[in-house]
């Protein structure tokens, strides 16, 4: 088996979702469980085939049909594997930081009014993560705060 990368982990995750769906469906009445059970089994099978085809070469060579592209699929350019893996590492580092920002913003929204949370998030993100000037950060944060107030509170009268 090739070293397990994020793609493989994602396939295993979806397989896990299918497995959970299958196990839970056994506790429902026969009518309610019929379709979810079939779908869960299908998902597990499809993900297993995809995982084996891409990550287990010994089995994958018999599963070439699983790599069949759609009718309008494009050929993707393939960079060298060394430069691809270095680029991917940098991308994943950036992704994890962005996800932290996203989750933090979502949490703050739960405790503080959006009129405060949005400008605060934009101010800090644009300056600290985006590396832009304080002036740009303040300008965007203030503009979005005013825009949100005008749109949601005044125009749509949505009580948030």
């Amino acid at each position, binding site marked *: 088996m090739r070293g397990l990368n994020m793609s493989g982990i994602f396939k295993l995750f979806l397989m896990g979702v299918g497995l959970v769906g299958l196990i839970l469906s056994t506790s429902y009445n026969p*009518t*309610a469980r019929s379709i979810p059970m079939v779908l869960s089994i299908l*998902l597990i099978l499809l993900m297993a085939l995809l995982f084996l085809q891409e990550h287990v070469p010994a089995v994958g060579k018999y599963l070439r049909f699983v790599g069949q592209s759609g009718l309008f699929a494009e050929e993707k350019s393939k960079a060298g594997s060394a430069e691809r893996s270095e680029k991917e590492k940098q991308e994943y580092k950036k992704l994890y930081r962005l996800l932290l920002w996203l989750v933090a913003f979502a949490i703050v929204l739960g405790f503080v009014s959006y009129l405060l949370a949005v400008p605060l*998030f934009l101010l800090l993100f644009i300056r600290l993560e985006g590396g*832009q000037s304080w002036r740009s950060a303040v300008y965007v944060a203030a503009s979005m705060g005013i825009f949100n107030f005008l749109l949601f509170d005044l125009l749509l009268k949505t009580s948030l």
Partner: protein
Amino acid sequence: MQTEILQALSDFLAWPTPLFIILGVLLGTLFGFLPGLGGAQALALLTPVTYGMEVNQAIGMLVGVMGAVPFGGSISAILLNTPGTPQNAATTFDGFPLTQQGKAGYALGASASSSLLGAVFGIVVLMVLLPLGRYVVLAFSYPEYFMMALMGISVIAVVSMGSIWKGLAAGVFGLLLSSVGYDPVTGSLRYTFGTDYLYDGIRIVPALIGLFSISSALELMIKGDSLSSGNKVENVNSGMSKGIIAVFKNFWLFIRCSIIGTVIGIIPGVGGAVSNFLAYGHAVQTTRDKPLFGQGDIRGVIAPQASDTAKDGGAMVPTMIFGIPGSVETAILLGAFILHGLQPGPRLLMENPTVIYIVIFALVFSNIMAGIVGLAGARYLAKLIELPVALIGPMIIALSLVGAYASEGSYHDVILAVVFGILGFFMNKFGFSSVPLVIALVLGGMLQTTFHQTLASTGFQGFFTRPISLGLFILTFVMLIVPFVKARRAAKNNLDQGGESI
């Protein structure tokens, strides 16, 4: 029918509906123009915003966005050699060379008129097919709707831009997600994990916001520093009227490409990128002076743009008649319909036909306005592209999460949007298209209900003894095996050629 059309026209013209359409056009042009964004993101962001609006205003605004995106995307394709959306990729081939020759206005004028007329063509086809739709709908029963939904999801996987198996997996995953909540037949709760938020299932609006808006913002922020490819633009306004007339000088090409776009639009899930390339390829193959293509031939702008907008009218055919979305944008539009208490599908056609005519009027009006706005503002839009992603990305994230919260005032929607945003990002990264998942999420309820209704009324044989249902089943089966047959033939041909050369 005449009464319904007049009623729809009256509702369409009632103030402030035209204002909301214009707002939608402005946003659609902007989102279409900015690379990395597009109609799906704009619609996903706007849907919760329309919650407090009247139905006509909401539909007008959303359709305004849909109508404006193709032309908006062509502006950046022509001026900056960067397609605003994937469905404008082929427009760069001849659009940008024209800009380099100082004929940017000429190209933009041709794009504006072919986009508008292409949209009109698609709408004419829709209006011709709509009355027939009522008869088709009356001939359909539970097995037919089940097979139609199954075919819709399967076809999307087959015609997708990536792996069929990944497309099918995404569709199955979407169907499984649609099982969350009350079972439509027995009323039992499934996959709610003890939380009453999930009793009514996965809410479509925050899911769409996450899948399209948040995931693309994450991709944008990871990929680049700015949206610009470094090109500066000059001479934008001269030659526009000559460009507008160019469509009429190549009228038969325009008609053929509009037909291509309409047909592609009718097939669920195929999308504008495919029609864009097919139309361009057709133009290249059917004209005699080929060497000009790729060097600034105006037909290389007319062909893809006509098919892009004709596709929208085509996509409305399965959406309005059957409630089966013909594209990602119409899938989100259906989500908006549900948010406003409209049940898409045959009931909408029979009980609320004025809504459908409002969609048609809004599509025509939005294409006209998009042409005017786009041509007037192209020069200024070109400057926006120099904005760093570090400013645009977080703005989209902020709007997305507030929009998710605003749709029903529930914080759980924010969490759902974040979860789907992360899911959508990884799905796109690893080659699983979000389109089958979205369409399966929208159709899943109908699929399950009609399955059980068929079993209850006619038994399992009902799927195979009714001719339309059987025909749809066979069509689905054929669509699923065609790529494998083609691949097998290609492999055999390669083998034979290799044997001959030895």
